[in-house]
């Protein structure tokens, strides 16, 4: 699959899971790199991933770490340690 198809597929999984994505949200494209689809799949359960782009100028690695922990510890995101580390790595490297 090319990247756009993969990306669209990740959002389609969310739709199948009964989650509403906002109109226009599919236009948000995170940087194509390893674990991009993991980030989209996990983060998009609760919010559009333009949150990632918006906070890119603000957050460094420690900030991304704190942000991901907040999603897990305070917002109840069911993300295990291994996936959390991969998500932080992607965000810290590409944003």
């Amino acid at each position, binding site marked *: 699959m090319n990247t756009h198809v993969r990306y669209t597929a990740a959002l389609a999984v969310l739709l199948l899971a009964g989650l509403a994505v906002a109109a226009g949200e599919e236009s948000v494209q995170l940087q194509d790199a390893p674990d991009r689809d993991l980030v989209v799949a996990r983060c998009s359960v609760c919010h559009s991933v333009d949150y990632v782009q*918006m906070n890119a100028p603000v957050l460094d690695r420690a900030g991304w770490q704190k942000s991901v922990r907040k999603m897990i510890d305070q917002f109840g995101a069911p993300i295990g340690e291994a996936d959390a580390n991969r998500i932080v790595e992607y965000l810290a490297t590409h944003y």
Partner: protein
Amino acid sequence: MVTRRRVVAGSIGGLLLSNLAGSWAFGAAEAAEEPLLALPGKRALIKRTFRPPNYETPLADLRSQITANDSFFVRYHLASIPEIDARTWRLRIGGASAKRTLELSLDELKRDFERVRFAAINQCSGNRRGLFAPRAGGVQWTYGAMGNALWGGVRLRDVLNRVGVKGDALEVVFDGGDGAALPGTPDFVKSLPVDRALDAHTLIAFEMNGEPLPHWNGAPARLVVAGWTATYWVKHLTSINVEPKAFDGFWMKTAYRIPTGAFPGARFASQENAQTTPITEILVNSLVTSHVDGARLERGRPAELAGWAWDGGSGISTVETSLDEGRSWRAATLGAASSSYAWRGFRMPLDTAKPGPLRIAVRATGRNGARQPEKLTPNPSGYHHNMIQTLALEVA
């Protein structure tokens, strides 16, 4: 998708009054693209995030005395937003410190209580967060997470008096119909000190600018806490509970807090600790709407600086402008104030006879004596941005 140029915050540090140099410094603007998109029923607004929807009012739509419903900013914390049928909607009022419980339909709310209407600023706690230096995480708002609207509804105190408030009441807790995708995410629930809940300017509002509340602004009924930041203005109200103890939800105990003692404004004693305290009242502020930083003026052509000033309800006493980097200030002409909670217009003619830069600073002072500061008070969440606005215009 429409885009427009905007001035971003990268140079804001350069806009601070420098104590060492004793002069205003005007930084070079850095431009970035920013999409204007329309939610259903809204005009194109500055899209910050799609889901939950966070949309900011463009400066051009903040030029009128009343901010139009279809360009009023939209702010949500949680992505599940109900389409509520006003005919079947019910508001439940009760709690451990209420003598009775009550369930009201919209018709009963409108029929059984005295109707009230006044203009008030609705401003997000994080308005201008995107202009903070050092930067703060969160929705990167610039100037438009606010607006001035005419709110119509009934006094919360009249409704609370109908159920009867017991002597041990400490806080009143508000829940709305919005929810999260995951069961583990804290629901957006807010509380007010009981005295603020009983204030004559705290409303259950069902009208905005003479029309039913727009969906994205809290239909069919929302809380209006005039003078306090918009975090308390709970949308899509479903329940109101009078309680004898401090509400301990995430959105009170963890979010929307500022360092204790760092800012002026009403204290929320039952929620305060040694380190942090809830944000409460809107601080004195102003906004130039006639020009943007970097704008060019035609030499010899009459020009006027104009905008709005507001505070948490004491009312605006003066707006001053400085053309000499803060050494001297001149009073601008003030417009009428329709309510002390609404913004007040100001105007100042600009001298365009000579070509060259025109460096303008604007500061507002409230009737309570509070004045816009030269520097920001850093705080982790980027709240209360009310620093003196500076613009570098060019006469050519």
